[in-house]
């Protein structure tokens, strides 16, 4: 494993302090106002924020541009998400050098959703590399100062590279072997797919204890019953616990908008404080990755409550 520490994220993960990361989702716009506002709300509560790369294959403003602007305008450290869907290895390599030149220090290397799931399904799916190969390529750039063919990079980039992993995968074993491959390739930290059930998270953490690698469990505070229902019904493998779903369902009948929101906040607060405390106190997880796009207001309270 790389001994050097380049970023606040890695410094905190190495210090064994329970760590929070957040998530920012650039949209179909040239105005990054909303992302900057969101970053400002999270600042001080999460050590760094992921900036998504055309999630679900919807075309949005570049994650590299957004990562840079967020760092420049808010001081929030970013985790630049980079997928293999839209670029071949030349373009990815080039973007990575650009990212380093712009002061990006963390990269989350992902394969990316398939093009046909997005809003431009006619596009050519590239997938010249997969996530394991991308991680390996980044580590060579950093550790050996070499391009994919071993050619020297003048002033090599200084990145920490992370990977994704899905605790809900069924069967889980092929996913765990893939996790091993990512570690072998040089991944230094992992952020997981959303998990709502504490048992699923704990079982996964049990299985991965032997790898001794920082893992941040992905959580997704549920702004409304609609969001909860969406996850429960349409994202296979992601189950929202019955109690939580029912509580949110009841809250949706509250007529007054402010009261409804306050109730939702209460329900989330109660559920996720319990969830995070359980992870923090009973597992080896390094922290939680909070995906709260459009619901940043919940984050400061959650983080404060589990300190």
């Amino acid at each position: 494993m790389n001994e050097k520490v380049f970023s606040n994220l890695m410094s905190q993960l190495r210090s064994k302090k329970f760590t929070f990361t957040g998530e920012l989702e650039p949209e179909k716009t040239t105005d990054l106002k909303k992302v900057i506002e969101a970053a400002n709300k999270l600042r001080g509560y999460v050590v760094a924020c992921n900036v998504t790369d055309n999630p679900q294959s919807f075309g949005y403003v570049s994650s590299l541009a957004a990562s840079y602007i967020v760092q420049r305008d808010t001081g929030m450290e970013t985790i630049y998400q980079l997928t293999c869907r839209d670029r071949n290895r030349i373009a990815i390599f080039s973007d990575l050098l650009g990212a380093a030149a712009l002061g990006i220090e963390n990269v989350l290397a992902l394969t990316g959703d398939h093009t046909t799931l997005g809003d431009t399904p006619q596009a050519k799916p590239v997938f010249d590399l997969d996530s394991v190969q991308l991680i390996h390529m980044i580590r060579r750039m950093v550790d050996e100062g070499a391009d994919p063919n071993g050619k020297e990079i003048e002033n090599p980039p200084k990145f920490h590279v992370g990977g994704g992993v899905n605790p809900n995968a069924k069967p889980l074993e092929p996913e765990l072997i893939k996790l091993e491959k990512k570690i072998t390739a040089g991944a230094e930290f992992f952020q997981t797919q959303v998990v709502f059930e504490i048992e699923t998270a704990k079982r996964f953490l049990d299985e991965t204890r032997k790898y001794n690698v920082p893992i941040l469990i992905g959580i997704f505070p549920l702004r409304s019953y609609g969001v909860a229902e969406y996850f429960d019904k349409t994202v296979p493998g992601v189950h929202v616990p019955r109690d939580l779903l029912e509580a949110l369902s009841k809250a949706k009948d509250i007529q007054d908008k402010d009261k409804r929101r306050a109730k939702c906040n209460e329900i989330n607060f109660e559920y996720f404080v319990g969830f995070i405390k359980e992870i923090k106190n009973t597992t080896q997880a390094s922290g939680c990755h909070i995906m709260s796009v459009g619901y940043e207001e919940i984050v400061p309270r959650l983080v404060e409550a589990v300190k």
Partner: protein
Amino acid sequence: MIITEQKPMEEVLEMLKPFEKVFIIGCGTCSTVCQTGGEEQVKEMTDKLKKERKVITGTVIIETPCDARILRRDTRKLKEDIEKSDAILAMTCGAGVQDIVEHLGKTTVPGLNTKFLGQIERIGEFYERCRACGECILYETGGICPIVRCPKSMLNGPCGGMYDGKCEVGRYQRDCAWVMIYNRLKDLGMLNLYRTIKHPRDNSRLNVQPREIIWTKV
């Protein structure tokens, strides 16, 4: 086998619009099995074109129209009928069409769409199983090809779009190639092949120019 589908009749007629006299060539191998360019389909096409007031100067089913030797041999006696036509309608795969163009020198209209290199389960049930990528890795993957069976052609395991062994592309109707590979290698006691990182493919040797294999004497 090369799996083909017939083009819609309107498209065929549109391409044949400038031509009155047509010679039809079918394929006795793949297109016969796919029932897209065999004896019966050539007959049906002849009838349809006659109804559209085309003159059919002749028809033939070539056993393998993609094989220049067979194509030349089996069209020799038909030279006159072919010459009389304004265009050839080729009910063959794309390789057949191009062989015809190259060796018979006539304007040639493709009657079929070439779909894939496939396996035939039964007539009417064809599965794409090979992308002719040129670097076979089937040994390492338990005989299941991730290049063709994974929508992302991933080489190191399933992506986050797998659930319950199914692939999110196409709404979880099909099996995830990497779960199949994992299960197969596990059964074979060869999971070490899955555990080994597979490095990116060398595309400089693939998909650059049309591939040619020319034997040279040693």
